[in-house]
């Protein structure tokens, strides 16, 4: 067996002389490795693979006001070095999550970033209200890569004004720093990031998935029941690096949480060199739930 006892890794990491701490504005994390929302759930299923408490922070699957059952299957299609997903934000809803999942994460002592998703500006504000003063919650990630039902289902983060409105409402009630998670499917991502920061966001999370589609030529049917879906994985890493670089050039003082196609420590380092403060590993959680424990040190070693 080549598997290593992660506890050993943890103590080695903690007793290490290297200072891995990163500051995301007012938010300090012990190390730059966080999870990316959506493929980590809230961690219960992952706990048996490694010690979650050693993460810089856990970013949980986006929560909505009401529980959501999500979209029909097939929800996933593999593509070259990537995958398409159309899950439809299946989640238990914010109330049940606060009752059952947060206490569990809190007991682990890991900083929790709560991702929220709404159909309207009002829903985002209500979600932020639920999170006021919740113990263990160190930040809110507003996943604004969602369709706005009040504006012909145009994704919030596709428009500077909708972005501004959502973030204003969320930061008004939030008791913790707010990060805006942006979609790369825009003409000017730096402009959207500026709007988010002007509206009070502490920083931005880059990038959400790219809108994509795949067709099975034999059945002549879209491979996803929802027709289109989000493209993620190593295929999109160059787009993520570029987006982080562009936003960092435009807003050098704004902390960026980078993600998109991260599989290895080198990938995290690449996003950090492009300007991110820390890197979200999503793909790894899907393909390689075990073995994260060496990541934080490796990334730090490469970047500093």
């Amino acid at each position, binding site marked *: 067996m080549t598997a290593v006892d992660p506890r050993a890794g943890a103590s080695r990491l903690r007793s290490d002389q290297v200072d891995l701490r990163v500051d995301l504005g007012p938010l300090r994390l012990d190390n730059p490795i966080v999870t990316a929302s959506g493929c980590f*759930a809230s961690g219960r299923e992952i706990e048996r693979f490694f010690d979650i408490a050693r993460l810089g922070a856990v970013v949980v699957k986006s929560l909505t006001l009401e529980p959501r059952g999500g979209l029909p*299957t097939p929800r996933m299609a593999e593509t070259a070095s990537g995958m398409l*997903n159309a899950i439809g934000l299946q989640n238990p809803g914010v109330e049940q999550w606060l009752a059952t999942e947060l206490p569990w994460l809190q007991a682990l002592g890991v900083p929790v970033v709560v991702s929220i998703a709404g159909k309207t500006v009002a829903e985002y504000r209500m979600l932020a209200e639920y999170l006021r003063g919740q113990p263990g919650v160190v930040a809110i990630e507003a996943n604004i890569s969602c369709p706005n039902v009040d504006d012909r289902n145009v994704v919030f983060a596709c428009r500077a004004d909708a972005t501004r409105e959502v973030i204003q409402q969320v930061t008004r009630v939030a008791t913790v720093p707010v990060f805006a998670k942006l979609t790369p499917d825009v003409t000017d991502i730096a402009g959207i990031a500026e709007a988010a920061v002007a509206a009070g966001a502490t920083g931005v999370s880059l990038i959400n998935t790219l809108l994509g589609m795949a067709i099975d030529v034999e059945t002549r049917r879209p491979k996803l029941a929802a027709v289109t879906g989000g493209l993620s994985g190593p295929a999109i890493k160059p787009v993520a690096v570029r987006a982080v670089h562009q936003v960092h050039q435009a807003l050098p003082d704004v902390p960026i949480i980078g993600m998109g196609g991260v599989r290895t420590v080198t990938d995290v380092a690449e996003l950090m060199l492009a300007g991110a403060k820390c890197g979200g590993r999503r793909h790894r959680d899907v*393909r390689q739930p075990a073995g994260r424990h060496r990541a934080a040190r490796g990334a730090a070693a490469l970047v500093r």
Partner: protein
Amino acid sequence: MAATAGRCGATEEVLAYRRIGAYHSLTFVAPDMAERARPGQFVSLGVAGGGTLLRRPFSIYAVSRHGPWAGTIEIVFDVVGPGTRWLSGLVKHDVVDIVGPLGRLFPMPQQQVGCLLVGGGYGAAPLLYLAQRLQQANLRVDIVLGAATQDRLFNAIEAKRLSASAVFTTEDGSYGTHGRVTDVIERMFKDGGIGVVYACGPMPMLAAVSRVAQRHRIAVQVAVEEAMACGVGVCMTCVVPYRRDGDVANVRACVEGPVLNGRKVVWDEIGRQPVGDVATGDTATAANPALRP
């Protein structure tokens, strides 16, 4: 919990590769997994080759906890795409990154009832593993295996050895009864003596078997196969609509399944758009007649 960490994921060595009819089999040296594996569970294998990133799930077919290798597990597979093609090229001593055992097992009957095992294609593999356990528990086992053609009937010899009676169906009539498994199980239910049905195979087969069992008010446990991205319960890719607490919920085939109560799966709703719950996605319209919606 943390005490078991590391034991769920490992790089395992190939002990043997062999062909079984139209199928391929790989045996891995994996004492930890062998120790914990139960019939119905699966393992998730990292595959290499041309831009293929996601793990591939395979039912556990056979487990040995003794012998010189301290413990081995065996899987059976059909080559259908790049991942299984890559696996079929492995030889002894190659190593594969495996996560498992994963998922819910076939529950053992709590009483002395007759067990009917219904398998389609390589779906027979986990059932033969189950048959062994049921025999060890002194339960009567009857097996029905179906496939398109004779060479796709998985291991008929072992099925005979592990059962009181074994019936085979092929769609082209090349072996056993000409037809499908559902054509023969109806009669077997009528004959009586069956207390529980276990099934594994294509989804339409599982739906049909579940319906027949439901009509005869017989318990039915099915191992479903939904495309999986993570295999460990975090991504919500693999869901199946399922009756629970008087409601229908999307349960994850990889953790709440793959073995599910066949009478609770809402077979008709699989792949259907739930009304009023469209969070994202547009739909193909008549503007593109080439594309089927």
